[in-house]
């Protein structure tokens, strides 16, 4: 307790998701990804942030700091299966006339189905995207470049992050999609090789999973180990018996060195399990 107080300098740190339960068992690699995804400030998508640190008020002449408080954006669960390019739904109010009452409004991005091509995976993927996604892909000169360059906080959806993980894994394994075309394979690998330097292999394996998914993976790991640890008693006893018998065999062999049994003893001739019965 005291050591903790020293660590946190007396502040009571509320236990977060990584402090209890399965979350605590998650590896550092996943925590790094989570930080990049949920705990870094994403680029402003639906508003234009003011530049600079201070601003002078026009009327009063006072100097105020510029605090760009982002617009709260909603991401419905559907967006995890699409590529929205960082856009989301904004819930707010519209004031359509000076004397009119404010009216609730949802600004929803225009979604349309389009195709996206990944060079590394050599696949055309049909996804629901927004105009912004396409523009960003074109800006970055390619879908793979776009995914690998934008941080997780801007990619947001599980699909995008999952694709990023797949691309990184493929790059690590040397682009297995181009096994039949070694020239192309080398070319693609060289082009995207530099992106791998930012991640360790462990980090790549843990990249792009939601917290629940990651916990599930850890839990499965634990379960598997536990299962492997459980052995039925009969196996144990059987093994013990075999050991005992092996030990007994050795004794018999040892004993047989000292004497031989009488030959032709009438007891030896009796076979109680024999099938032929004289009687």
């Amino acid at each position, binding site marked *: 307790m005291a050591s903790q107080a020293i660590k946190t300098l007396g502040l009571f740190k509320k236990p977060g998701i990584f402090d209890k339960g399965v979350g605590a068992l998650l590896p550092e690699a996943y925590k790094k990804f989570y*930080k990049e995804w949920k705990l870094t400030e994403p680029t*402003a998508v639906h508003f234009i942030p003011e530049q600079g640190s201070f601003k002078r008020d026009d009327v009063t002449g006072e100097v105020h700091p510029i*605090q760009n408080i982002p617009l*709260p954006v909603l991401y419905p669960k559907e967006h995890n299966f699409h590529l929205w390019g960082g856009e989301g739904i904004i819930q707010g109010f519209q004031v359509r006339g000076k004397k009119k009452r404010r009216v609730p409004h949802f600004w929803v*991005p225009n979604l349309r189905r389009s195709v996206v091509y990944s060079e590394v995976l050599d696949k055309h993927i049909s996804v629901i995207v927004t105009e912004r996604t396409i523009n960003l892909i074109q800006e970055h*000169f390619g879908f793979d470049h776009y995914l690998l360059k934008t941080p997780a906080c801007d990619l947001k959806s599980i699909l995008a992050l999952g694709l990023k993980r797949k691309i990184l894994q493929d790059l690590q394994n040397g682009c297995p999609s181009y096994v039949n075309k070694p020239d192309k394979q080398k070319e693609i690998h060289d082009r995207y090789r530099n992106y791998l330097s930012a*991640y360790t292999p462990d980090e790549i394996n843990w990249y792009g999973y939601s917290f629940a998914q990651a916990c599930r993976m850890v839990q499965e790991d634990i379960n598997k180990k536990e299962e492997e640890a459980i052995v039925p008693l009969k196996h144990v006893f059987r093994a013990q018996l075999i050991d005992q018998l092996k030990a007994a065999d050795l004794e018999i062999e040892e004993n047989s060195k000292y004497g031989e049994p009488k030959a032709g003893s009438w007891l030896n001739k009796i076979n109680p399990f024999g099938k032929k019965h004289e009687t």
Partner: protein
Amino acid sequence: MWKSIIKPLNIVNKAFLSPTENVVHQQLRTTYVLKRKTPPRLHKKNSDPKPLRSRHYVYELVKNEELEKKANINVILTTYVEGLGNKGEKVSVKPKYAYQDLLLPGLAVYESPENVEKYKDFMTNPMSDVEAHSSPTAMLTVRSLSGIMLSVVMNKDTHWSLKPWHIKVSFRKCGYIVPEHAIIMPEQEIKGPNMDLENREFFVTVKINNKETVPVRCRIHHWSTEVKDRIPYASEFWKEKVEPIFDEHSSVLNSIPHKAELKK
């Protein structure tokens, strides 16, 4: 709704390879860009931002990017594309067309610095593995000419021998500008007036930009100045399949797509 974001002291730099923030700030490229009508209260530096109230959720639309005109993007063609250019050419096209019809099918690549380097050679040696076409529109003209059936109207009473300028005039009447030097007549001379030639085909080769050649199906029609002497008009005569004047031409004529088949 509001979740506190722990701003780390050092944003992980390794993961971000190139700063895209600057580009995004200049051009937001979002569907909706909004602005608060009432700015939220200022908060102290080390404390959390003040909770937002309903009045802070009143927004006004600054712009809707989807309604604005989109600028063209530059791409480098990887094959000959009709109407645009040869392999290796840099073309500026509308972004939607570029993405759907050029980039996704693989007919072009983005104009990134690496691609510019890679495709630099294509411009200097155009004849590497695929023949370059003389111009972007040459193949369109070829396609157009291969489908037509040219009526060469010659006089029924005066003697004539078919010359390039007759063909040129016929082309001009149909709406094709073909100079005389681009027309290659058949080796055999066609003389008239000869009623045996009526409703029989021959072909003429047109050379575009001194490069692309296309055989054009032709037919002679005898025309008389006096109305009473004229041959009655046959409706949709171009759909009929007729014999060639010279048997040697039949193989070439069969290779040209026939209008009757095209109409299917």
